[in-house]
């Protein structure tokens, strides 16, 4: 179909960067991590993504520095290829085709030209049983290389990549699965197996979770599910092996890592504390507490100066020598489920959803960057499994972005549920939200919906909350009861119910003159000005699931979905059902900038999207099987620049863009072909322009060049001697602009060089002027210098006419500057 070809579902940022262990380059300047189908290269200093290595067609399952060349890195993917990259320039060097999906990749400095990969054992479909293969990489030329020299090293390898480690100088490999530790010696071609009991005497589980080998000593550290760390020695004997137990962690050890010299052992787990054990003096530990979320991976730079820990909240923390957090690379935080609705902050145009436990995250869609986390709960988070913590379950922003309302809950199902409604005011000086009012237990039972009046501004803001206690309450900003109490705060303005039914949804009309509250099967429409019940609608049976007013030209329509799979549209002028259709709508939302509405329908395990106008019978756009599973969160984000699309099917994307979250927490969006082409050309232009951003500064310098060239290419008027020296200055400027900001020396050091480079051109005409006035003096002073710079110092004397012509050219040359200044 044409439509499908025109509009595509695309991934929009926010990919997981902590899926696999990251790798730090040997100069500690770059951090490589697998991110979805790509490998991202971050600068460790600026936290910016410097390169994105694209090429894999499936999930990247491992990143590894090439042991023999520290500027190259391997990446493996579930698409069955291993790729070799030059990660500083972002060039794909080689692609090795393995042919099986790869789960993880390992290498060892002593095994040259060999990499080890974990792939599913043939015959087994599941990922439970993997085998470790050694792959001899052929030294053939060409980009695409088929590898066939595979040899099995170990079988029965766990799917967790942390359970395989290479020992001292690659002599042996240790692998754990379940309660078994397996060690294979390459030289002797011999393997040893050690087993622990399934459960220790205290009933805790002994299962291995990770393993690390000492780089210079024969010692293997293993982490266990009960929080113990065991240090194994003498494991080259069947019986005389020993182990020592270290126990600090109270729950599962997730990551273990030795520093390159082997002086320290790092461990981390759910507690989100990085523990540094002194090797041989294990009673001494250093701690780095409160890293934010459970540690999933630990990596150490080859010089041992920089540690990095990956966390379960999609964050990589860089730590300098176990004392100081130097930088944090944060992706879009994805919890187990997003409980708040997706929202767009009208000020920052950022996507707002709950992220870290107890926080709201503001995520910039344009820049694919987390802007900031708003601490809603403001309590110390205890990293312990099975603990019932406060969770942000609802959040809503008012039309101007001046107020934010959040609802947090604890012990959601029990009787003594704790509920807080918090109202946050936007603070201009600090550019963030500041807590204004906390209402504890606003409703006696859980809150089902909160919404702001979209039209109200400033002092007249109105918030409506619905609770399972059968009431809905209106909250208003009220001046303090006493002038000494400080600023205004929110108080309850109106409480009402409808025959004791539970309100499920509430929705304001676009102008704020009507409030629709869905009480199970009945839709009630109220006037917020007088709090009068205007009308009730209850045509088709079924509990109201979603309510939405039409916008702009369709504002007379009220749409609702019911649990009996009906999509109904009421006309509020005639108070009658306009139309209804039978479809299982999981989510209904209105575009705030147009009169379009989007309905996500769940059908046969897939979600279909319909975009329609309430007043028109035909949908504007429909796409079957947008994604699998039920879509429950979506948002229309207004575009910064409206598109000029003429095709009917994609017109609904002109003003705003539709983002939605799949059940697997991927953030997807729709993009048109025109838009993609525009993006492509933009990126091409960027390449042509030597990847200099279009800044005012670049316009200043970028325009200079053509003029310069024009002046040069004017041989008739310009004597050969007057050709401007390819000045050291412009080279310096180019170098300055082309190299990334983070690799440049301090601005103070650059300043003088840069200023000289800029001054170079204007100084020429002045020289000419002076030459003109007193030739004898100046020529003597400047000529020898020229002679040094240029190869042919034969310098004919200029005629008057030539000089005049030259001046004219110079004047021309300067006009661009004055025009720029004027504009």
């Amino acid at each position, binding site marked *: 179909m044409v439509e499908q070809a025109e509009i595509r579902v695309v991934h929009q940022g926010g990919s997981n960067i902590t899926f696999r262990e990251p790798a730090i380059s040997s100069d500690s300047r770059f951090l490589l991590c697998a991110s979805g189908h790509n490998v991202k290269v971050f600068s460790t200093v600026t936290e910016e993504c410097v390169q994105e290595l694209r090429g894999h067609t499936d999930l990247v399952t491992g990143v590894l520095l090439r042991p023999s060349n520290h500027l190259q890195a391997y990446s493996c993917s579930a698409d069955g290829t291993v790729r070799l990259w030059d990660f500083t320039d972002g060039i794909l060097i080689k692609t090795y085709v393995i042919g099986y999906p790869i789960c993880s990749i390992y290498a060892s400095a002593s095994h040259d030209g060999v990499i080890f990969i974990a792939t599913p054992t043939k015959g087994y479909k599941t990922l439970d049983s993997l085998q470790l293969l050694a792959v001899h990489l052929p030294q053939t030329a060409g980009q695409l290389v088929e590898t066939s020299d595979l040899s099995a090293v170990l079988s029965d390898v766990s799917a967790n990549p942390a359970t395989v480690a290479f020992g001292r100088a690659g002599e042996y490999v240790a692998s754990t699965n379940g309660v078994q530790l397996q060690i294979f010696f390459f030289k002797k071609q011999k393997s040893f197996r050690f087993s622990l009991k399934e459960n220790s005497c205290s009933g805790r589980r002994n299962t291995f979770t990770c393993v690390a080998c000492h780089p210079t000593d024969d010692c293997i550290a293993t982490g266990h599910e009960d929080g113990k760390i065991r240090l194994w020695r003498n494991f080259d004997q069947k019986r005389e092996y020993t182990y020592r137990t270290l126990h600090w962690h109270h729950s599962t050890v997730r990551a273990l890592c030795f520093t390159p010299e082997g002086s320290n052992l790092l461990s981390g787990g759910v507690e989100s504390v990085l523990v540094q054990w002194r090797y041989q003096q294990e009673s001494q530990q250093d701690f*780095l*507490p*409160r*890293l*934010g979320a459970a540690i999933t991976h630990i990596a150490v730079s080859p010089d041992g100066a920089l540690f990095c820990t990956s966390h379960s909240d999609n964050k990589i923390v860089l730590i300098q020598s176990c004392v100081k*957090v130097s930088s944090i690379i944060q992706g879009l935080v994805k919890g187990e489920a997003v409980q708040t609705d997706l929202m767009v902050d009208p000020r920052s145009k950022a996507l707002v959803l709950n992220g870290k436990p107890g926080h709201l995250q503001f995520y910039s869609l344009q820049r694919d960057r987390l802007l900031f986390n708003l601490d809603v709960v*403001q*309590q*110390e988070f*205890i990293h*312990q499994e099975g*603990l*019932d*913590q*406060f969770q942000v379950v609802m959040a809503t922003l008012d039309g101007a972005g001046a107020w934010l309302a959040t609802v947090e809950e*604890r012990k959601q199902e029990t009787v*003594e549920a704790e509920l807080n409604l918090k109202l946050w005011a936007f603070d201009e000086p600090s550019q963030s939200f500041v807590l204004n009012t*906390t*209402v*504890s*237990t*606003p*409703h*006696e039972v859980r809150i089902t919906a909160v919404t702001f009046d979209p039209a109200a501004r400033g002092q007249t803001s109105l918030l409506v909350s619905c609770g399972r206690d059968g*009431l809905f*309450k209106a909250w208003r900003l009220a001046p303090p*009861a*006493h002038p*000494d*109490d400080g600023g205004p705060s929110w*108080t*309850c303005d*109106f*409480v*009402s*119910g*409808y*025959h*004791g039914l539970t309100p499920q949804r509430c929705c304001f009309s676009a102008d704020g003159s009507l409030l629709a509250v869905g009480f199970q099967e009945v839709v009630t429409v109220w006037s917020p000005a007088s709090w009068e*019940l205007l009308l009730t609608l209850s045509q088709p049976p079924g509990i109201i699931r979603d309510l939405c007013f039409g916008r702009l030209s369709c504002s007379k329509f009220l749409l609702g979905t019911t649990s009996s799979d009906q999509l109904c549209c009421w006309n509020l002028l005639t108070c009658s059902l306009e139309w209804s259709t039978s479809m299982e709508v999981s989510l209904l939302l209105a575009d705030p900038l147009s009169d379009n509405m989007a309905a996500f329908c769940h059908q046969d395990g897939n979600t279909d999207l319909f975009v329609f106008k309430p007043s028109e019978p035909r949908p504007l756009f429909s796409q079957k099987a947008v994604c699998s599973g039920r879509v429950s969160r979506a948002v229309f984000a207004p575009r910064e620049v409206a598109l000029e699309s003429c095709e009917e099917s994609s017109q609904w994307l002109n003003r705003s863009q539709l983002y939605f979250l799949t059940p697997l927490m991927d953030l997807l969006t729709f993009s048109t072909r025109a838009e993609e082409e525009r993006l492509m050309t933009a990126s091409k232009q960027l390449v042509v322009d030597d990847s200099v951003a279009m800044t005012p500064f670049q316009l200043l310098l970028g325009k200079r060049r053509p003029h310069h060239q024009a002046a040069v290419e004017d041989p008739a008027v310009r004597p050969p001697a007057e050709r401007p020296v390819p000045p050291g200055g412009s080279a310096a400027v180019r170098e300055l602009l082309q190299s990334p900001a983070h690799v440049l020396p301090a601005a103070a050091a650059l300043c003088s060089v840069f200023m000289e480079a800029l001054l170079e051109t204007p100084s020429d005409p002045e020289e000419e002027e002076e030459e003109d006035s007193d030739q004898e003096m100046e020529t003597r002073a400047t000529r020898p210098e020229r002679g040094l710079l240029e190869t042919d110092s034969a310098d004919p004397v200029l005629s008057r006419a030539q000089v005049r012509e030259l001046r004219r050219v110079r004047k021309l040359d300067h006009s661009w500057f004055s025009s720029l200044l004027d504009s």
Partner: protein
Amino acid sequence: MASFKPTKIPVYPKLGEKVTQDTLYWKNYKAPVQIKEYGAVSNIDFSPVAPHNFAVTAFSRIHVYGPFSQEPVKTFTRFKDTAYCGRFRSDGQLLVAGCEDSVVRLFDVSGRVALRMFKGHTKAVHVTDFTSDRYQILTGSDDYTCRLWDIPNAAELSTYREHTDYIRCGVTSKLNRDLFITGSYDHTLKVFDARAEKSVMTMDHGQPVESLLLYPSEGLLVSAGGRYVKVWDLLKGGQPLVSLKNHHKTVTCLALGNNGERLLSASLDRHVKVYNTTTYKVVHNFDYAAAILSLALAPDDESIVVGMTNSILSIKHRKHTEESKEIMSQQRRRPSYRVFVKGKNFVPKPDDYLVSKPVKEHLAKYDRELKKFNVSKALDASLEIWLRKKKPEITVGVIKELDRRGTLKNALAGRDEEQLSQLLHFVIGNIVDTRFAPIILTAAEMILDIYKSVIGQSALIDQQLLRLQNILESEINLEQELLEVLGMLDTMFATSVTRKEVPYSDVGRSNGLAQGEASSSRPELQAT
């Protein structure tokens, strides 16, 4: 690495009265001086001239007190029966008083024997006053008449027989020698002009009038009777301006304070209320031990004198700012913090390289223990005696935090008799507080679970547990009664409100808003 977030102590809305300029002003009095009189103090009057002595009429005596003396400087005892309404003349030289035996006596302040006796009334005289020309006396009596007397020759000038009940209050105009106003138990106020035969204005108060007060400008008249205080605009022909009902028993006395900006009313309900005379809102309230019969303020509010039915005279003197300043300066003399900080005023030069020291975050003791996961010690720290007495919300906050961490049971367990009794003491003290009840109930249940095996081993603990049980039982009974009342109220509302289209919403509104907003009020059932 984020820093430790301290335990959040919720801020509860402050109950009780707010601190305002008025409360500060009216609280700025010393502890009262209490003087036992011979009987109920029926009237107090301040002398208009310095040193502002005041005459206290109680039983058959009139005592005159000096501004700071606690002993009477002068006593008038020549009454045959109960004396009423001892009042000074505007020059402070003469004092007039009525008596139960219907004779009005005029005294010289320095003398002892009555200068004049005005006989003519047939019943007790409760009202006496001088007119503004100083030569005449107004009297009002239980024989329903009010009369004007000439002082020099003790002759009756005129009699007005318009009231139909006892005359119990009256004032003369300070600006016009001919005007006076009387209030009677026949519910009326009457304005008389001595030049006219009849009253010139009559106002209906609605209750027996107990007290009258004229504003200094004499444009407004305040009358007290029954539970009401009413303000009348005399210039608009006696139009009622405002009616105040802030007492729940008869208002007996009125006074003006703060240069006429505040009105005070005293009542048999043992309260003195202070009103703002522009808004007529109550801005302050004094409590006294017994029903108040009389009230007077010294000029500039230097003292408040209140006479009560239990024959106690209570005198409050104003605290002076010099005294409080003295205390301040004494405090300031102590060695101060800044003495010990070296280089506090050092200003770095522009080219100095500043090494900033990381600011150490101050944590409370319980937070320090919580940071180290020492749960028992954290609970101990929060149960320190001054903390649990003065700021129970902190103790409750820590208990809540421990519960959130799932370690409350560990923190409560393993305590000896003394610690456990401390804990129980706190629980008993706060379990009925609606702000704390939910979490303290959880803690109390845990305590019972943990220590049920050792019940009976300590008499102290057993006693406390019994007290806890009693408190809970009485609380449950209270809640039940309250719910019954609420049910009754709901039915009343339902019947009184006209049935609209959605009757439920009206009921909901009356309930939800009557409870002072749902903003922070817990449902009352929580404590059961």
